[in-house]
């Protein structure tokens, strides 16, 4: 019987603690391949599209119109890939939750941590930390590579210039918060395919629908769309986005995005407590 009865030391304290739950979630996120693949995709897509966009601009700069030259924002251009990279990080955000439900691991997890809001909060915290670090690496990587491509033939930006550091760092923040939003959606929807569809719908389909609305309504709704906010967050010349939808200033936009993420996580946590696992 010696093998069953073990000499595990008595726990310190009367109750399981958030630190242990965080460590557990860190073990989980780093021990599945989908994490590696979605992060590699986030990096590859964002930097790849940034390279494509800056190369194109560098080659056509000599033919660019005066209007184009006046509104040219080299920082924003090098970060254009974030619009697609957000899909990959969103898929990771979804999988962090939906894979637990899809495989049934959720029951083992909740048997170990009956406090469901704590469980969801730990998941969200670990994911956000990973997404923020990878997001900043991606954003700065895309910026530096993009500027070196532009450097030969077109104006390029440097981190020391006004608003540039804010825009590049904003790219990483944008990725992390959108990924967290996807995680929140998954905590409500619980199915991988359903949650990814909802995430893509909010990001890409919804703006297409609003395009069809009269401009007075479109401008109001458009301000609240993640893509509009993201665009403003990653631009230096926010007031020069001629013809584009009016946008919140970068930090207000970030606060709005955080509000979205908090709202879906709050609803997800509320449902999690009430629903059967």
């Amino acid at each position, binding site marked *: 019987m010696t093998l*069953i009865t073990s000499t595990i030391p008595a726990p310190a304290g009367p109750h*399981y603690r958030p630190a242990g*739950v965080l460590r*557990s979630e860190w*073990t989980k996120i780093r021990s*599945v391949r989908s994490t590696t693949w979605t992060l590699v995709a986030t990096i590859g897509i964002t930097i790849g599209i940034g390279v494509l966009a800056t190369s194109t601009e560098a080659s056509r700069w000599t033919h660019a119109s005066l209007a184009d030259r006046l509104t040219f924002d080299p920082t924003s251009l090098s970060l254009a890939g974030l619009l697609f990279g957000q899909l990959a990080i969103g898929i990771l955000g979804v999988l962090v939750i939906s894979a637990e439900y899809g495989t049934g691991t959720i*029951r083992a997890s*909740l048997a170990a941590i009956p406090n469901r809001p704590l469980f969801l909060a730990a998941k969200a915290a670990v994911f956000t930390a990973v997404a923020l670090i990878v997001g900043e690496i991606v954003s700065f990587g895309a910026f530096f590579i993009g500027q070196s491509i532009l450097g030969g033939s077109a104006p390029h930006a440097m981190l020391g210039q006004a608003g540039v550091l804010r825009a590049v760092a904003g790219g990483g923040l944008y990725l992390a918060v959108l990924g967290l939003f996807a995680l929140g959606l998954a905590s409500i929807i619980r199915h991988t395919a359903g949650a990814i569809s909802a995430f893509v719908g909010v990001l890409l389909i919804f703006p297409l629908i609003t395009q069809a609305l009269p401009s007075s309504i479109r401008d109001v709704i458009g301000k609240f769309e993640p893509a509009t906010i993201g665009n403003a967050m990653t631009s230096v010349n926010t007031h020069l986005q001629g013809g584009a939808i009016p946008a919140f200033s970068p930090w207000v936009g970030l606060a709005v995005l955080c509000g979205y993420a908090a709202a879906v996580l709050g609803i997800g946590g509320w449902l999690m407590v009430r629903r*059967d*696992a």
Partner: protein
Amino acid sequence: MIEVTGITKRYGDTLAVDDLSFEVKPGQITGFLGPNGSGKSTTMRMIMGLDNPDAGQATINGKAYGGLGWPLREVGGLLEAKAIHPGRSALNHLWALAQTNDIPRSRVDEVLEVVGLTSVARKRVGTFSLGMGQRLGIAAALLGDPSVLLFDEPINGLDPEGIRWVRNLLKGLGKEGRTVFVSSHLMSEMALTADHLVVIGRGRLIAEMPVSEFIAQSSQQFVRVRTNQPNELREALQSTEATVVEEEDGALSVSDLSAEEVGDIALIRQIVIHELSPQLASLEEAFMELTHDSVDYRGESGLSADTDFENKNGRLTPAGK
């Protein structure tokens, strides 16, 4: 100690568990028996705080599951075979669980050894057979060295060696004074392992009693006898008020008389008999009789009853060694 009081669970119009109350005491193995779909798994999930009951409550050592300080150190549960992320290794699955309850890494290696998965600990769970998945689930249940253990159909998917190993494990855990609650839809399996029975059908309690009592109560004995003169023998036997039924092959089934008595009567009447054998109705038949009215889904073929009663080594050894 598990106490279930008036627990009720409704899915839409269906009452999955209907005002169910019972106790599971420490130091013995309590079998949770019922046909498929009778509410066993739902009840176990409610005990473990995973599903919310519509009425009633379940407590473990006097506390609701959600009120346990270190849940894995107090309760171990195996609820579903292979309900584990297929992309994660066995080691990482257990380590992630262990970390939540401050269980040291050495204990993960220990339970992997106990269930015989040490050599495949770093393999992804998706490559595991159903039986290996069950062993990993059992390892997770043992992780916190808990005093209360719940196993939902632990022998599903196991080969005969694995089944024997689970039986010995359960008995070992019971002998150590733990509370062991095991569900099964096979009475024969419970007769081999359990000390006490909670029988449910359609979410309602049908019986709660020691296994020995269930066996004594439900084992109908009868004697099978074959002869060329069935009518004479039947007449002779019936004169003793025994119940005699003629079977399809012409043999007679005699209740309320021993084989010796039947033989003696035949000799006195000078009737030649060609077969005389005492028969025992199987426990499976008794169980089916008991739950007959409460079976929702018929047509399932149960595993053939394993009649291996021997239990050579009560000692727990890692499987495959």
